[in-house]
Structures are given as structure tokens and as C-alpha cells.
């Protein structure tokens, strides 16, 4: 089994519009189906990038912490949430992810994840 992060991207200008609510049943349906099948390992929705705060020690760990209002990068498509999907292989993960409304409102990026203290592929 492989654990995948399904990252949900939306066009920035449509991130928080009135129609968003109409997609809620779609997300609920996906959550119910994937949950019942035992493939859902977690997931959260993100508030719009306008609420983001970005922090960095710009000149190394001992320098002053720089705090900025807004997202790290301005982009046409913004990350709006994620799910963790556990699947036998990429084909199965794709089959599940294709049911997330973000695949037709925007795009879903699937990436295999590994434990923070484990080795990454290709390192």
C-alpha cells in the first residue's frame, strides 16, 4: 500500500465565491465513500490564502524571524486543501481522487508521501 497526498488546487479568483457551497455535497459524498472503503487517512480544507502568514529566518536559523502577511507565493492556482489517500497503487489512487470535486473545479495533484524521518525517493 502507498500513502498519497491528494492536494487540491483551485483557480485563485474562484477560491472563495458563493458557488463554493454547491460543491459541499460532492466533498461529503467523496468523504463518505472513501471513508467507508477505508482509503481515507485524513484531510483538511484550507482557508483562503488571504488569511495566510508566512514566516522565515531569511538569513539562517540564528537570524531574525521575518513574518509576512499573505501566502508564500502568489499564484494563479492556490492550494485549498488536501486528503491523505491510502491505495494499493497509483491507478487506485487516481480512481478515488477523480471523485474529488476539485478535479473539475481545478486540479488535484497526487504525490506519494513518506515519513518525515524516513528516506525520500531519489535522495
Amino acid at each position, binding site marked *: 500500500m502507498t500513502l498519497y497526498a491528494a492536494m487540491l488546487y483551485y483557480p485563485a479568483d474562484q477560491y472563495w465565491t458563493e458557488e463554493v457551497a454547491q460543491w459541499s455535497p460532492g466533498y461529503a459524498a467523496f468523504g463518505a465513500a472513501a471513508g467507508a472503503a477505508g482509503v481515507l487517512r485524513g484531510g483538511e480544507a484550507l482557508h483562503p490564502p488571504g488569511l495566510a502568514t508566512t514566516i522565515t529566518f531569511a538569513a539562517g536559523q540564528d537570524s531574525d524571524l521575518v513574518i509576512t502577511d499573505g501566502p508564500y507565493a502568489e499564484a494563479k492556482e492556490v492550494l485549498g486543501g488536501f486528503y491523505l489517500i491510502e491505495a494499493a497503487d*497509483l*491507478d487506485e489512487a487516481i480512481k478515488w481522487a477523480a471523485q474529488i470535486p476539485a478535479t473539475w473545479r481545478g486540479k488535484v495533484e497526487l504525490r506519494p508521501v513518506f515519513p518525515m524521518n524516513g528516506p525520500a525517493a531519489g535522495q
Partner: protein
Amino acid sequence: MSPQDRLAETVRDEGRRVLATLIRTLGDLQLAEDAVQEAAVAALRAWPETGVPDDPRAWLTVTARNKAYDMLRREAARPVKETAAGWFAPQESADLAQEVLDMVEPDSVVHDDLLRLVFTCCHPALAREAQVALALRTLAGLDVAAIARAFLVPETTMAKRLVRARQKIAHAGIPYRVPADTELPERLPAVLAVVHLIATEAHAPSAGDDVVRVDLEAEALRLARLIAGLMPGEPEVISLLALLLFTAARRPARSGADGQPVLLADQDRSRWDHAAIGEASALLADAVRRSGGVAGPYQLQAHLAACHAAAVSWPDTDWDRIIGLYDLVLAASANPAVALNRAVAVAQRDGPAAGLAALDGIGGLSRSHLWHAARADALERLGRPAEARQELTAAAALAPTGPDQRLLARRLDALAASARELGH
């Protein structure tokens, strides 16, 4: 075929089967490839002296297994699938014959393993160039240097591309399995596109100095035959094989004695490979019978190639049928390169003025040397040599390869000569 070539052919054919099975049992594409590669090298070294063994696949299987075992011992930390660990347990068995029998899979299993490998190499989650590289490396058994040469990239670039593709297969969980029948319509086109792309690169190299890159043409045909054998009765697979054979049949006439390219219109059709045309025609008829009246994109292209193959000369070509076929291709998906070919056919059927109008109706081809060359042809026939010269000059500047540039330069010279004769 020399004995050496025949030997290399056996090693590649059988090596590919051994590889497909080894990938499944090891669960590690890279390890399996390295092991089969070493076994192939060992075979090419040993067999010229000992003769080809009665069962070359068994020989390669045992040798590749031992090589993989050595590699695993050298990198003890490398994770191995449980099944593989058991399979590789050191054996003190004295009965090597029985051991070999146990290891060599029956043909039906090898068949399934190969088909799995086809779909893994051509998985849509891999970039097309990675699919092509994997297909040539893993399915066709070409070495990295040969693939790099064929695509005119440095060997290190091609090696990196393959490493990245294998890492993605391993870590992103790209499955090693044959898609279900219901998924096949989605997945088969990628497989066919990879083979077609290899063939296209062979017939119209995007760079370099060869008229036809024979090695890639042979590889594309080899892959098409492999897939046709693995998926008998799939009309689009049969059509693709027919298309490749029709095109390959023209090869003897595609370049002149001086090595320069000869356009289809000017080719000596008696030099075409008529045996290949015969095989292609039979395959196309089979595909038509199996497709139930719905021609897929490769069948349409094969019909077009068949049309040219059946014509005794360029002017005698059935342009009505050609244009009708291009209309069907274009209805399925708009493609400026197809529209260009259609316009050339219109110029033949309806005259240069209609051809020029059709050419000018296609957008987005101002960087295509073929478009400029086709306009030049129509303009010349319309008695507008100055404009024709301009177009040919533009085409020559845009042509990507030496042979194309020389062909266009020759046409410019001919145009200038006829202009002098006419006193322009």
C-alpha cells in the same frame, strides 16, 4: 542476417521475456534490468564459443537470477519483496536441471508478464519521453547509449531520464499489471502512441543527417509486432502494425543513389517492398473486419497509406478517397499537420489555386518548412515563380535536417533554371 546478429536477436528476444518475469518476482525494475543486462553480456561472450544452448531462455534465467543474487548480496541493505527473498534463498541443490525447470515460467505466464510490462512502461503518469525511453530500454532491449544516439541527446541525459522514470514507477506506485477490459480504451492509446512516436522519429527525424533512421524503424516494428502478439484481435493494434509496414515498405525508394531524400511524388514505386505492402494490406483488412465499421485513428492512417501503396503513380492516386479520409481524421481531432496533407491532396485533385486556398486556411504553420514548401509548389504551378522562390527560401531556412535543406536547395536551383529558360 549474420550468425552474430542472430545471436544478438535471440539474446534480446529471450532477455526481454526473462526480464518481464524477473520484474514481477523481484518487484524491482532496476535490479531486474541490471541482472538481465549482465546475463545478456555473459551470453554474448559465452555462446559464440559454446554454441547457443538448447533452451536459451533457461540459460538467461539462471544467469540473470545469479547476477541478481550477487547484486543483492553486494547491497545487502536493499529491500527485497518477500517472495523474492524466498526465491533467492541460496540453494545447495545438486539437481540443477530441476531447479531450472522450476524457475523458467510457462509461456502463458511470460505472456502476461510482458503485457504488464508494456502497460507499466506506457503508463499515462509517466511523461511521453519517459514512456518512449522505457519502451526502448525495457521492451525493445536497446542499451542506453543506443537510445541516446537515436534521440540525439547525451547518454547521461538519457540515463537520468530512465532513472527518474524507474523511481517514479517504484515510489509513486505505478502498477505492474494489465488494465481491466473496461480501462483498456483509456490505456491502449498511450501504448500505441509510444510505438507510433518511435516510428515517426524514424521516418521524419527531428534533427540529424539521416534520411531514415533505420534502427528506430525496426524497433517500432518490433514493438508493434510484440504488442500485436500480446493483444491479438485489437483492431487499432493491428492497424498500427499495418501503418508501420506500409511506411517501411517505401524505405528503399525514400532516398536516391546520392543519399538525398526523394519525395513520395517522385519515388520509383517499383523499389517499394511489395511483400511488406502485401502483409500490411492483409492486416488492414483484418482490422477492418474486427472494428465493426468504426475506424480508429490508426486504421484511418493505415487506409491513407494503403491508398498511396495501391496507386501506380502520384498523379494516379485516388485523391477523392485521400481527401475523404483526411476529413475523417480531422473530424476526430483538428491537427494542422493533417490539414496540411489534406491541402496538398486538394492541390492534386482540384488544382493549385484550390490547394493554395486550402493551405492559406490553415493557421499556425508559419514555422513549418513543409507548409512553405507546399505553398511554393502551388505558386510555381500557378506561374508565380518569384513568390515560389520566396517560399522555398523560407522553407529552406526552417528545415530542421540536412537532407531536407539540401532537397529544398535543389528545388530552388531547379526553379531558377526554369525561370532562365522562360526568360524571366
